[in-house]
Each structure stands twice: as structure tokens, then as C-alpha cells.
């Protein structure tokens, strides 16, 4: 599939200056007990600053490996990743996670022993240059803006519903003004209604504070509804199978999911994804724990 970079309609905020991602020929080979396992094979993708890109694929297609490389938890065996032209990850670059590309984790990683306010201000305080009072003020405003979450600023994560925990975790990432937001199947265990509520909140945050977003998911519907571009991955070794431009207008509405344009997109993608899912299953691919 040709790599057609597309430009979503401009009814969003202006494109940010930073956050352009250049992934060039990245491969990752693990060798547990000596047999080489190719998780990612010559994967390339250019993401313009401010684009919302979703990556879809079955277990074992290397989407988590890619995320780990982008986030700086892992190094590629070959190939290179550039952030705004500056090398970010490469075989000889020491992996270094940092606040310019923050991850929202699949199982959720709010610190249970810190209050909501503690969690949200943690990044600002650790990077320094901001007083505690200033950090808390910023946190309160951001929490208030997204669904009056400032009401639960002093609560502990264990007291919140999984939906609320997710929203706080996204805010904890966004407050650091990262260039790229990396989301690892954040709404995976949620039921239909909570999931679509979360979609609405994420899109609201995105329109208010436009960032480059890389959204990893197995749910094609979710990818098509949220993203400007949907990348379908092949099962192991992970390569780019299909690059679908989603030209639906923004802000996205639930009703659009019944429109002809959406159905056409879904038609194309459904077979590609389920084909990969079948192949993955034949090979006994398991969720890489």
C-alpha cells in the first residue's frame, strides 16, 4: 500500500510546531534462547506534527514493540526514529524516556499512593523550573477544564472508576506539554458506553490542545472513529500492511459511523485486520505479556 500522507480538514486548532515523527526502516529482533524473533521488520512511517495516527493489529504484530521504541524503553535493532528531525532512537542511541513523548499505559499507571493532584503535578515538579504552587494551579485548571475533575483532586486513584483514572492519566501526560502523546490500548477493558465517553473526552482534549498522537489499539472501529490515519500492521514480523486516510470531518460525531464514507473505510479495513488475526492465531501468537 502506498504511503499516502493525507491532510485532515483544518477545523482543528492550528498545527503545533513540534511533534513531527519520522520512523525510517525500523526493525527489532529479539533472540530469546537463541532463536531470532523478528518483532518489527523494516517499518517506516512519517507522521506530521499534530496528526492523530492509530496503529491497529493482532497480537504479535509488533505494535507494543514500536511503542516501546518511540517511548524510549527499548532500542531498535536497525533503522532510526527522528523527532522534529533530531534522532530519538537508533541502534547505538541509549534509550532515554522523557516528557517530550509521554505514554498512557494499557493497565493504567497512576501512582496509587499519590492523590490525583500529586499524580498530575508529578511531571512538572520532577522536571523542575516550576514552583509547587504554580504546578498545582496549572493542574487544577486543566482538571477543571476536562469535566470538572478538579472535584476529585484530593482523591486516591483506587477511589476512582476506571474511566476517571484513564482521564486523569491522560491529563497527567498532557500537562507536561509533550510533543507526542503515546496511548497503548488505553480503553481496552471498557464497556461500550464508557469507551465512547472516553473517546469524546480524548477528542475534546485533542481539539483544545493539538498534539501528535500515536494510538495503539486492536479495535478497528475505535481507530477509524478517532484517527486521521489508520495503520494496519501484519502479524509477526510486524510490517505496514495498509495506510488508510480517514477523511471524516471533525469534530467526530457518533452518527458519522453510519455514513457511507465510514462504511467504505470499514469495508476496506475489516478484511485486512481479520485476515491478520486469523494468520496470527494459526501461528499460535500469544499476547506478548
Amino acid at each position, binding site marked *: 500500500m502506498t504511503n499516502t500522507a493525507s491532510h485532515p480538514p483544518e477545523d482543528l486548532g492550528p498545527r503545533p510546531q513540534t511533534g513531527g515523527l519520522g520512523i525510517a526502516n525500523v526493525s527489532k529482533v529479539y533472540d530469546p534462547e537463541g532463536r531470532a524473533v523478528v518483532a518489527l521488520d523494516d517499518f517506516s512511517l512519517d507522521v506530521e506534527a499534530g496528526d492523530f495516527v492509530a496503529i491497529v493489529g493482532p497480537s504479535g504484530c509488533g505494535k507494543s514493540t514500536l511503542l516501546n521504541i518511540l*517511548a*524510549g*524503553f527499548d532500542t531498535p535493532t536497525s533503522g532510526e526514529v527522528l523527532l522534529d528531525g533530531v534522532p530519538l532512537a537508533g541502534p547505538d542511541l541509549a534509550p532515554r*524516556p*522523557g*516528557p517530550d*513523548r*509521554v*505514554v498512557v*499505559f494499557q*493497565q*493504567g*499507571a497512576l*501512582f*496509587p*499512593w*499519590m492523590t490525583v493532584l500529586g499524580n498530575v503535578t*508529578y*511531571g512538572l515538579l*520532577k*522536571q523542575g523550573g516550576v514552583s509547587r504552587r504554580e504546578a498545582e494551579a496549572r493542574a487544577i485548571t486543566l482538571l477543571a477544564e476536562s469535566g470538572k475533575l478538579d472535584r476529585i483532586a484530593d482523591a*486516591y*486513584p*483506587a*477511589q476512582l472508576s476506571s474511566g476517571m483514572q484513564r482521564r486523569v492519566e491522560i491529563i*497527567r*501526560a498532557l500537562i*507536561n506539554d509533550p510533543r507526542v502523546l503515546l496511548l497503548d490500548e488505553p480503553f481496552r477493558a471498557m464497556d461500550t458506553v464508557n469507551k465512547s465517553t472516553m473517546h469524546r473526552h480524548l477528542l475534546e482534549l485533542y481539539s483544545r490542545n493539538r498534539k501528535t498522537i500515536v494510538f495503539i489499539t486492536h479495535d478497528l472501529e475505535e481507530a477509524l472513529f478517532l484517527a486521521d490515519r489508520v495503520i494496519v500492521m501484519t502479524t509477526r514480523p510486524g510490517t505496514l500492511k495498509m495506510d488508510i486516510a480517514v477523511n471524516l470531518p471533525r469534530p467526530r460525531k457518533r452518527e458519522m459511523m453510519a455514513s457511507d464514507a465510514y462504511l467504505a473505510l470499514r469495508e476496506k479495513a475489516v478484511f485486512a485486520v481479520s485476515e491478520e488475526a486469523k494468520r496470527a492465531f494459526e501461528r499460535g501468537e500469544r499476547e506478548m505479556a
Partner: protein
Amino acid sequence: MPTDAAIPVRTTSLLPNRRTWLAALGFAGFILAWYAAVHWSPFAAFNRLPDPFEVVVEWTSSDPYYGISIFTADYYTHIFYSTYRALAAFGLAVLLGVPLGIFMGWKQGVRAYTGSLLSLLRPVPPLAWVPIAILVFPGVEPAVIFVTFLVAFFATTMNTLVGVRAIPQDYYRAAACLGASNRDVLFDVVIPGAMPSIFTGLQIAMGAAWFSLVAGEMIAAQYGLGFLIWESYSLIQYPTIVIGMATLGLVGYLSSAAVRLVGRRLMAWHEQRLGMAG
């Protein structure tokens, strides 16, 4: 969603006051059985034992026959010595065991060096150290404290280690993403994350401390509840034996309860988790 289907396992909990009634009945039954065994049973073995009322009278009399009751100074001296030894050993175990457990859990290198040594020393029952401790340490006091410390130390270190190893990797990664340095990760992720199992370890350590303290005091000490129990036996002051045992049980229970309380205070978030998520 709790259910109420009648299940042979979990008979519905009885009404609170009915349970307190039954508990009172249980205690009364126990006292009665004890008294009956001592006075009315044909076995000489039972007749030698002190009966409950004898013990209570001695324990609460202002002029106790054998000199030990809640009104005599000696009683509190023994309690003081035992408590001081237990707390000294427990404190040492916390000071050494928690940091070692944390670093063993956090840094693979530390674990590699100390892991095998610990697993070499652990199977030796701590009380076997008593004779050596008496020989090596200048006085009896440090020897008894050392043995008590040893028991508490292993319990603390092991549980702290388990606690640190159980922290999900995502927390470390989240902190790194947010710009935390290595030192930050130690104080913001490792220690708080391991806290719940550190306190489990501390409770076990406190119980173990009292356990081995008694042996040390019986074998080698001049003061303390263990010594009191053994000496009362030698001087045929049987009611005082039971007073000593009951006091030990009480003080042991109170110190474990204190550790639980401190734990609950320090880990408000943990308690929340149990409360809300129930």
C-alpha cells in the same frame, strides 16, 4: 456484587450481639473447664496446675503471695526489659532489613551478592544462634537482642524484597516518562510501592521477635518475662507462670497491633483501595 445464596461454606454472619454472647459463653466455658480439670478431674497432672481464680487473685492483689502482680514494681521491670529487648531487636531489623530488602529488590546486582548468603543462613533456626551469641557478644543482653534481631531481620528483608519485586514495571516507566531521575524513582515508586508488604513483614517480624525473645530470656537472662516464667517454675510459683504467659501474650498482641496501626496511618491510599474497591 455480594450474594446471599445459602452456601454450606459461608453461613450468614450472626447478628453482632449474638456473636458477643457466644464469645462470652466460650470464655466462661474455658474458665470452667480449666477449674474443673484442676479441682475435680482424677488426673494428678491437672491437679498440679494453678486454677484460674488463683491466678487472677494473685495477679490483681496489692500484696501478691509470690511478689508479682499489677501493683508490684518487679512486674513492670520484667515487662520493661522484655519490651525494650523486643523493640531494640525489631528496630535494628527495620533499620537493616528494610533498606537491604529494597536494594535487593531494586538492584539485580545487590540481589546476586546477598541472595545466596541469605539462603545459606536462613535455614539455621535462629534459636540455634543463642549459645554462639552468648560466646561472641560481651554480655547476655546483646546476645539475647542479637538472636531476637536475627529472626525479625529475615522476616523484614524477605517481605520487603517480595514487595519491591511485585511493583509493576509500568510504574517505573511512567516515572521515567515524567522526567524522574533514578533517585526520584527510589523514593517515589520503589519505597511507596513496596510499603504494603513491608508492613506485612514488620508484623511478622514483631511476632517472631517476641517468639525468640522468650527463649533467649529463659536460657540466659536475669530479667524479662521469659526469665520470670522460667524462674517461677523453678521456685514453684505456679500462678506467676500463668501471669507471665498471659502478659507475654498481651504485650505481644499490643505491639503487633501498634505496627498495624502505624501501617494503616502511613498507607491511607492502601486502606482506601480496600475500602472503595470492595
